């Protein structure tokens, strides 16, 4: 038994999702990422005295959507609070957040681990708040501050501390990522920080019910880093305890290059936020009518869509999983299906293969493909106009030029040759060139069939109908 199996890790995640609303949470400044520094600012988000924040209704709408998607109850009367601390990227000296009455409470997401174990992870609360600005520390002896991000709407999603491994935390984060993307409320870009994850990690002896001292991990800007940082921190805490030490409650920053989590060194250490209700903002009342309308507008969520793909299109679970990971992929797939002339499990599976292997690949390369064009391509294979091999060539051309497969096939003369007479003529000349191989084939080297097919294809520049080539070859070689 290893040392690690004596211990149980306890992990809770705080995920911040930047909302993709047009404007900030409390003012009409643009919420666009990547604008020139300090250009999307106004007296409200600059924290000038005497200004009044006014809540963006869309933020509440997004919060309700997310709450419903992760099985939360929506708070009928929710209020805003001030979280007080001094930091240069927070011009007001307080962050407007929610404390006592968050908009959503008591939800959960279901996750499945690599070994098939299913777990339900509780969500304590989801609250609305504003983001802080951005400090740039690597500019000489001073810190530069960009206030553009101040007032960017955030939803903070707080899990129950009930995950026990880095894998569980990774799967939970993935579920949140997937959900916000399906809902279209956040672009989910971990690298750019539009979805951020902090982890509270502690360890305790197995069987112990009291929580150990926790540390907070920050600065993990990819799924991989979240898992690596948590693994690192669990191992570190166990080592400290094994050596007779105690865990110090502190914030650690993950350093992805060095593969370590180091204590955050900041001149701001006092964490005493002195929350109190923000007198500038009035309560948010959400009635059943609002909740029902939001529920009706929810898209089909990934778990449900996956099951439907399996039952409706008879796809393997693996395919359904890959296709529904992102809404854009699932939408692409289903749009492709609507354009198929033959709709049956065979063509559905063909479409699935194209999307999983080729569409996702070219999309990752930053290229685009029209689903209608993929439908046409699959139709062309089905009707025998082109072979599967030529189709790959057409596909690459499609992603490069965005032309329809019909045009590409015509332009490049790729129509499949299914004329038996023409194929037979080519085969006869091939066979005349390889008497030795024919002899070897006839004496039992069956694998040479592939050689003859290949040679014929070569001469026909890949346009020969492989089915007919095989048939004719088989007939000829039998004699």
């Amino acid at each position, binding site marked *: 038994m290893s040392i690690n199996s004596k211990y149980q890790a306890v992990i809770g995640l705080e995920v911040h999702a930047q909302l993709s609303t047009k404007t900030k949470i409390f003012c009409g400044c643009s919420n666009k990422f990547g604008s020139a520094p*300090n250009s999307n600012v106004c007296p409200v988000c600059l924290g000038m005295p005497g200004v009044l924040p*006014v809540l963006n209704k869309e933020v509440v709408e997004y919060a309700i959507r997310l709450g419903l998607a992760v099985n939360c109850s929506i708070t009928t009367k929710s209020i805003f609070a001030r979280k007080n601390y001094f930091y240069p990227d927070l011009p007001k000296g307080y962050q407007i957040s929610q404390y006592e009455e968050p908009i959503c409470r008591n939800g959960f997401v279901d996750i499945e681990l690599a070994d098939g174990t299913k777990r339900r992870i509780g969500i304590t609360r989801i609250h609305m708040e504003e983001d802080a600005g951005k400090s740039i520390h690597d500019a000489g002896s001073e810190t530069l501050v960009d206030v553009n991000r101040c007032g960017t709407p955030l939803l903070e999603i707080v899990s129950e501390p009930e995950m026990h491994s880095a894998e569980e935390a990774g799967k939970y984060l993935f579920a949140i990522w997937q959900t916000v993307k399906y809902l279209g409320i956040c672009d989910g870009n971990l690298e750019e920080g539009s979805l951020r994850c902090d982890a509270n990690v502690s360890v305790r002896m197995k069987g112990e019910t009291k929580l150990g001292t926790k540390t907070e991990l920050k600065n993990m800007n990819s799924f991989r880093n979240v898992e690596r940082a948590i693994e690192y921190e669990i191992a570190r805490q166990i080592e400290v305890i094994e050596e007779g030490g105690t865990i110090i409650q502190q914030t650690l920053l993950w350093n992805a290059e060095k593969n370590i989590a180091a204590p955050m060194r900041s001149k701001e250490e006092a964490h005493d936020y002195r929350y109190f209700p923000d007198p500038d903002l009035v309560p948010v009342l959400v009635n059943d009518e609002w909740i029902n309308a939001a529920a009706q507008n929810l898209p089909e969520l990934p778990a449900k869509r996956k099951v439907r793909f399996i039952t409706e299109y008879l796809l393997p679970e693996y395919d359904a999983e890959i296709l529904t990971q992102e809404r854009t992929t699932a939408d692409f797939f289903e749009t492709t299906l609507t354009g198929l002339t033959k709709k049956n499990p065979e063509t559905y599976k063909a479409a699935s293969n194209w999307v999983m292997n080729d569409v996702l690949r070219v999309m990752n390369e930053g290229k685009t493909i029209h689903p209608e064009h993929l439908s046409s391509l699959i139709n062309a294979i089905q009707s025998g106009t082109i072979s599967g091999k030529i189709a790959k060539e057409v596909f690459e051309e499609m992603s490069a030029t965005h032309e329809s497969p019909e045009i590409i096939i015509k332009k490049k003369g790729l129509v499949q040759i299914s004329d038996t007479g023409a194929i037979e003529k080519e085969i006869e000349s091939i066979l005349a060139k390889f008497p030795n191989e024919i002899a070897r084939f006839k004496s039992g080297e069956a694998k040479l069939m592939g050689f003859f097919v290949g040679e014929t294809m070569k001469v026909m520049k890949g346009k020969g109908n492989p089915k007919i080539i095989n048939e004719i070859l088989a007939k000829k070689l039998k004699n």
Partner: protein
Amino acid sequence: MAITKNDVEHIAKLAKLEFSDEEKEKFTHQFNDILKYIEQLNTVDTSNVEPLTQVIELHNAFRADEVKPSTPTSEALKNAPDKTDEYFKVPKVIGS
């Protein structure tokens, strides 16, 4: 619950303010006097009263998600004691 000098020092630290010993003593007394005065409210029975979070009897004051013009960067930076063309400049915050 009486306020001690330690509490005053803590609050001063949170507010990024520094005081002399004399001032701290004075504030300790003043804090206690204020709290004692406010404590009179504790004599009222509020067991059946919902906590008040807002004195204005309004709710759902919303804004539509429509972009309004922002302040030009030069205007935004105008009052800053130290700045570049695009940024506010502050003393380094991360200790090295």
